[in-house]
Every structure is written in structure tokens, then in C-alpha cells.
């Protein structure tokens, strides 16, 4: 029997692992990803689960490659069934092609028709029997051995990864797992697996999730105070930050709600400590009034919105890019602020760090739009890059006797005294105020302060990080945040097909660098705006600035299934 798999050299390998209630699909995925990392590969792992709080069906989706990958592929090459109970519900998330391979032990039950209907090759393997040969052996670890061999991962790397991930469960568990991996490996070699050799990268790489990367970016940016209320899919950021903030002398406060979170963050930042909160759509809605206060009183704050399907409670465990409008327009009044979006898992660290430093320097609110597909995806990637010039909060340590907290400066940034500074006392206010901070409803004060708050953001030189630009074709794809991974890959494939293409991935959404964008669009004849929401929120935003050609197209697809490169290519070629 031949278990042929595409080799790494031809691109990447995609595999899906289905399980249910404790069958270990997630653990298997984590071990394979870490083993791939240790073998010199790059990769991604997304996970999915049914609606149950515990147990129920679960799914790991992996893509392993010799170079960095930022999205899932169009199809899965390998489907590994650990348990088929309710797995049919995942059919849409696991597209297969005619030569996909399904591996499963007939002893665990029949493969749902939905997976075999497209002609995928099915192979029955004796996972269960092999696991039974090991004291304390588990089927998922046998499957890891087989899948690892198929992907060309060395057996010792699988054993190392299993040790690392299962260590906390005790030496007995690790020992049994290692023995099962060996059983699975042997099972694969018995079936003439062509030895595929991964291309090794010897560079330092990270194994990190988007939510962890956001947390790291916050710490790198100097955040030492976080207040937040738990919400899926943002909670992991908070759970990661909680202990680490304490170890660095900071604190995470679990607030009573998001109204408290944002106001606590404003208070801490007023005191001089860079502060942040993380939430998802429902929490961002509750924070709008507080964000407006930060803008008006010119206190730096950062909110990470790990977006999920909306509106209302929506689809808490699945991605969507549908909070752009509320991030841009949610505040009442004219409230200039920053909106940024990381372009991939690794970029979550850079973008969050940059957002913190920008908010600190510009004394305003920054909203970072991550989403479930970045936050809860684990990537093996190059270490995150660091922002260029360090941006500092402009403080006033020795105020003159006529100190004005909201002085009308040329660049719009007014030096801020921190509590404790002698002679710099002022009352920060959400009421409109004059340059001293004294409440005022005079037209002149209102206009001057509005101008100043706009000026400091509009006139700031954001450098080249506002977007990532690739290619110079006359056909252009514009994307933002998490839709960038699939869009970049679609661009690469189109280019390989001889279609000259340009991709513009926006990281800074507000203030829109419309001049730079117009320049980046120079010579373009056809534009597609790619995003994961129902109404084309970026498309309409860009339209309102008049930067798009008249016949620009919108490719807006709502969640919960992540965008794939193939559907972007399809739209561009035939749309």
C-alpha cells in the first residue's frame, strides 16, 4: 500500500485532525506543529470546536511548509480521524481534493460520507491495536507518529515535541507517548512511505499564537497595567499577561465589566503607566464612551479587539473582520484616534507594540483589530520585528508657572504633567476645555482643541509601516489585518501564473494615509478590496476617501470560514 504525500519542496502540507471529547486532536496538532518547528519548518495551527464547553467534537488544522505561511491552504492533503463523532459538522472547514488521503482506524467507526464523497483516498490503519501494545498508550499519539512520518518529520523530533508538550502530565505519560509515536512511525514505514525530507531552516524561530504575540507586543511597548473582563476569543491574551505582568512589577486587574476596564486603563495611564485592555466586539461596544474620554482628555490608551463573528453575541469562537466600522466610527463627536490591524500572527507583536508607542506619543486612544483567526492560531514563524524609532510620551517634569496642559502646540502634542509633579496640577476633563484644561463651551476653545486633536494625528509621520506593499502590477488587491495572509498568497500564485499583481495590506487604518495609498495605487487599472465581512466595510471606507478607481470591486466574505487564497484567485480571474 502506498501512502504518498506531497513533499515540502512542492510547497506545503496541510493536515486536519478530527477528534471528540478527550481523543486528543488538539494535543496531536500541537505536537506535530512543535515537531515541525524543531525539524526546521514553518507552520500554522488553527483549532476549532463544537459549541460544548467541555468535550464535544474538536479539530486541529495544520499547514507545514519550508518557508513562512500566513493562511490555510485551499485544501487539506491529509485528514486524520481520531474519532468521527459529529465530525461531519466540520465538513466546510476541511475541504479535500480528489487525491487527499484520509487515515483512520476502521475500529473507531465509519468515516462520514461528506469527507469521502469527493473521491479522497481512504486508508485504514490499526491505530487502536498499536496503542494497545503500549502500557497507557493512546491512539492519538500513534496517529502522530504516522502523520509525522508522512510529513517527513524525524521520529526523534516527534519524541522531543511530545516530551515538551506532555511534560506537565508526568514521566509515565511522556514515556507512553514516545512508545506510541514509535508504533505509529513503524506503521507508516510498513506502508512504503516515500521518505520526504523537510528543508531545514537553521534560523531562530518562534512558536507563538496571535494572542500571545499581542501580549508580548504590549509588554515590549511598556504596558504595565491591564484591566479587562474575560471574553472569547480575547481571554488568552489576559491569561498570558496576568502572571507575566506581575513578574515585571505590573498588574492585571480583572474588572467588573468593560465599562470599568476602559476607565481603569484611563486612570492608570493618567498616572503615567502605559495601559491596555483586550476584549472582543461586545466589550468594544461598551467601551466607546470611555474611548471618547481618552480622546478628549488626551490620555493614551490601547484596546485590542480580538474580533469574532457579530453582531451581538454572534459567533464567539470564529473569526470575522466585521468590527472595522465600530472601531472607526463608534465614538460620538469628532474623535480622531488610531485604528491598527496586525497582518498575521507574528505581526500581532509588532502592531500591538507600535500601537502602544503611538498612543503614548500622540496621547490618544488606539484600537488594535486582531481577530479569532490570528489570536487563536499558533504559528511557527520568524521572531517578530521591532518598531523603528522609539516613540515616547511627551511629559513636562518642571512646568512653568503658566503651564497649560492642553497648550496649542505646532504639532498638536501638549506636554503632559504626571501626578506628583509640583506646579503642574490640572484636572483632566472630558468636558471641552481651554488650553489650561478649564471647562469651556466657547466656540474658539472648541475649535482650537478639535483642530489640535486632529492635527497631532493627521500631521504625524507614520513612516512606511502604515502598509505592506508587494509587486507593481496593474491589477491590485487591497486587504487589511487577517485577510492579508490569504491575499498575499493569492498574489504570489497569480504572479507565478504570469499575472502581474500588486498587493497593498493596510496595517494603519486610521488615520488613513490616503496620500500614501493614492501613491501606492498609481498606475493601477483594476482594484479588488478583500476582507472578511458581509458589507465591505473597508471598501466603503476607502470609497469615502475617494482613493479607489470608479470600478473598484469588493470581495467581502463574512466569517466563520477563513478566507482561502483560491477563492481570491477565482474572484480576480472570473469576477
Amino acid at each position, binding site marked *: 500500500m502506498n501512502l504518498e504525500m506531497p513533499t515540502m519542496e512542492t510547497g506545503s502540507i496541510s493536515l486536519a485532525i478530527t477528534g471528540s471529547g478527550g481523543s486528543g486532536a488538539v494535543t496531536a496538532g500541537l505536537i506535530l506543529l512543535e515537531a515541525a518547528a524543531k525539524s526546521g519548518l514553518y507552520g500554522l495551527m488553527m483549532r476549532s470546536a463544537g459549541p460544548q464547553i467541555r468535550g464535544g467534537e474538536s479539530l486541529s488544522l495544520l499547514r507545514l511548509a519550508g518557508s513562512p505561511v500566513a493562511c490555510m491552504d485551499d485544501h487539506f492533503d491529509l485528514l486524520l480521524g481520531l474519532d468521527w463523532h459529529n465530525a461531519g459538522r466540520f465538513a466546510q472547514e476541511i475541504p479535500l481534493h480528489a487525491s487527499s488521503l484520509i487515515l483512520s482506524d476502521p475500529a473507531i467507526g465509519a468515516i462520514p460520507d461528506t469527507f469521502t464523497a469527493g473521491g479522497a483516498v481512504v486508508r485504514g490503519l490499526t491505530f487502536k491495536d498499536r496503542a494497545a501494545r503500549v502500557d497507557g498508550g493512546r491512539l492519538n499519539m500513534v496517529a502522530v507518529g504516522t502523520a509525522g512520518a508522512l510529513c517527513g518529520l524525524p521520529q526523534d523530533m516527534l519524541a522531543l515535541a511530545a516530551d515538551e508538550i506532555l511534560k506537565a502530565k508526568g514521566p509515565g505519560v511522556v514515556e507512553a507517548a514516545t512508545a506510541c509515536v514509535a508504533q505509529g512511525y513503524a506503521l507508516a514505514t510498513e506502508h512504503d512511505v516515500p521518505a520526504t525530507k523537510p528543508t531545514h531552516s537553521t534560523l531562530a524561530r518562534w512558536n507563538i499564537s496571535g494572542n500571545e504575540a499581542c501580549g508580548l507586543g504590549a509588554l515590549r511597548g511598556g504596558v504595565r*497595567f491591564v484591566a479587562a473582563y474575560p471574553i472569547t476569543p480575547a481571554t488568552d491574551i489576559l491569561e498570558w499577561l496576568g502572571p507575566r505582568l506581575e513578574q515585571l512589577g505590573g498588574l492585571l486587574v480583572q474588572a467588573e465589566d468593560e465599562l*470599568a476596564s476602559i*476607565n*481603569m486603563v484611563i486612570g492608570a495611564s*493618567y*498616572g503615567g503607566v502605559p495601559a491596555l485592555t483586550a476584549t472582543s466586539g461586545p466589550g468594544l461596544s461598551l467601551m466607546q464612551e470611555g474611548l471618547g474620554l481618552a480622546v478628549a482628555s488626551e490620555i493614551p490608551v490601547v484596546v485590542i479587539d480580538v474580533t469574532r463573528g457579530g453582531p451581538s453575541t454572534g459567533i464567539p469562537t470564529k473569526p470575522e473582520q466585521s468590527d472595522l466600522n465600530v472601531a472607526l466610527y463608534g465614538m460620538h463627536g469628532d474623535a480622531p484616534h488610531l485604528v491598527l490591524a496586525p497582518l498575521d500572527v507574528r505581526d500581532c507583536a509588532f502592531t500591538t507594540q507600535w500601537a502602544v508607542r503611538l498612543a503614548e506619543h500622540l496621547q490618544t486612544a488606539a484600537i488594535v483589530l486582531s481577530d479569532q483567526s490570528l489570536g487563536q492560531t499558533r504559528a511557527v514563524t520568524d521572531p517578530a520585528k521591532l518598531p523603528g524609532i522609539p516613540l515616547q510620551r511627551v511629559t513636562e517634569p518642571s512646568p512653568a508657572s503658566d503651564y497649560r496642559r492642553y497648550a496649542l502646540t505646532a504639532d498638536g502634542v501638549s506636554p503632559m504633567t504626571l501626578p506628583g509633579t509640583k506646579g503642574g496640577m490640572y484636572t483632566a476633563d472630558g468636558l471641552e476645555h481651554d488650553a489650561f484644561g*478649564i471647562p469651556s463651551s466657547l466656540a474658539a476653545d472648541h475649535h482650537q482643541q478639535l483642530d489640535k486633536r486632529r492635527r497631532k494625528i493627521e500631521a504625524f509621520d507614520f513612516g512606511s509601516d502604515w502598509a505592506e506593499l508587494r509587486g507593481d502590477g496593474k491589477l491590485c488587491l487591497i486587504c487589511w489585518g487577517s485577510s492579508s495572509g490569504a491575499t498575499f498568497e493569492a498574489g504570489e500564485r497569480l504572479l507565478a501564473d504570469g499575472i502581474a499583481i500588486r498587493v497593498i495590506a493596510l496595517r494603519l487604518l486610521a488615520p488613513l494615509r490616503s496620500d500614501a495609498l493614492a501613491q501606492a495605487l498609481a498606475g493601477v487599472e483594476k482594484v479588488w478590496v478583500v476582507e472578511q465581512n458581509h458589507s465591505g466595510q473597508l471598501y466603503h471606507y476607502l470609497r469615502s476617501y475617494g482613493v479607489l478607481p470608479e470600478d473598484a470591486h469588493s470581495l467581502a466574505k463574512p466569517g466563520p470560514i477563513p478566507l482561502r487564497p483560491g477563492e481570491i484567485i477565482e474572484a480576480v480571474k472570473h469576477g
Partner: protein
Amino acid sequence: MQAKMSTPALQARDYKSGVKPIWCPGCGHFAVLAAITRSLAYLELPREEVALISGIGCSSRLPAYVDSYGFHGLHGRALPLATGLKVARPDLNVLVTGGDGDGFSIGGNHFLHACRRNIDLTYVVMDNRVYGMTKGQASPTTAPDWAASKMTPHGTGVRRFQPAAIALAAGATFIARGYSGDPKGMTRILAEAIRHPGFSFVHVLSPCVTFRPDQRSWKTEVHPFPADAGNDPVEAARRIHADDGMGLGIIHAESLPVWPARQETETTLAAIEKEFLV
């Protein structure tokens, strides 16, 4: 100590900012402002080490009138803002001021959680049993049959919120009641409240002369709280319920660990980044 002796002690008036209050002549909030500046002078707190945080309402305008750091934030959200500031800057003396609408209605949830956290804040609520700023609607402490607001022409028909009882039930470790007609007593209470380590709640009866002229009668209705403060919450509960809500003085003072407990710094960012290395 020496530095302190070389500068002349500040008087209460030195804590006034010079910004003219927007309050109606005769408003009870003037006396609260005076008592706050007097207690700050009495405790000799350096002005730059004091922060006054408030929400929105007539009473919440107070921080701008004090020469200290301050934040006039959102309606109902003064306590969380102050909580963030105090956690970030434990060196500051943080006072929170506001009204009964601000603190017990829109900010009611934060009131409960600030009490149970026992963070070292002093919270002064100027209760006039009405929304002054929005011109005379019922508040949570308004009697159910008060029918003077067009919005509730037959009264609210809802029982009154009991600030002291609720603060006690939520875990406040210092509870007192003052009256703007008794500035001396209020100053003494405020000084004790600021000194108290942990969350101190000062409920001040502060009449609204404009929308509640009937509150002139308060001067004959107030009386000393039936007994001196104890540290037993069960006893305090009994006394609060036996009182008519007009008893003045320190009602309850209990010593409990102050939140948050401080942790020692024990790692570096570089060490944290290493976790991700393959």
C-alpha cells in the same frame, strides 16, 4: 521631615484652585468642597500628591475647584478610573467625589465592586436625593412618593437605595455619614476617611436648594449616629437598619488587608521572550 518644616504649612484656602464653582448659591456642595480642602490642610498633604477623581453631575464638578491633580471623567465611572490610578500610583492620595445618581444609579455596579476590593480610596458621595445637573429627576435615594419631577409624575414608586447598608454588605471597611450643615463634623470624618487604609465611603447629606427646597428641614432631622463606630459588621448592620438614615458620624471602621497585594519583580522581558523560541 525637615523639608516639610521649612515650608509654611498650607491653609485650606491654598487648596482652592481659583476656578469659580458653577453651583447655585446655597448648594450643599460648597460646604463639602470646604471640608475637603480643610481636611487636606489638616493632614498636610502636598497638593501634587492628591488626585480628585469624579464622574458627571453638579457634585462631580468639585475636582476642578481644588488645586490638586484631578480627573473629571464619565458619568458613573469615577471609581474605576480612580482604581486604575491608585493601582498604577499607590504613592498618591486618591479621593473620589460624586453624586447619588452618579454613584448609586449609573455607577452602582462599580460602587459594589470598589467596596469589596478594599482599595485605598476615599469615596465622597454628595447625596441630595435628586439629579441636580439634569434639572430635577428622581435618583435612587429619592423617596418613592416624591412627585415633583415631570418624568415621574406619581413618584417612582420604588423603594430607596440604602447607601450605608449596601456599602456594608458589599464589604466596605469604613462607612461614615456627614452633613453639609455640619462642616466641622464633616472635616473630622473626611480626615479619618483619608487616613483609613482601604476603601472608605463617606455618605454626605448635601441639599439641592434648587430642586429640593424641602431639604431645608434636614437641619432639624439630622442627629448623631446612635453609637460610636465599631469594627463588627454584624453590629454595624443592626445599627444602620435601626437608624433613619439621618444619623451622622463614623458608622463602621474595620481593618482588613488592602487590595492589591504587591508582588516582587522577578523576571525580565528577555526571559519572557525566550518561552517562544523553538
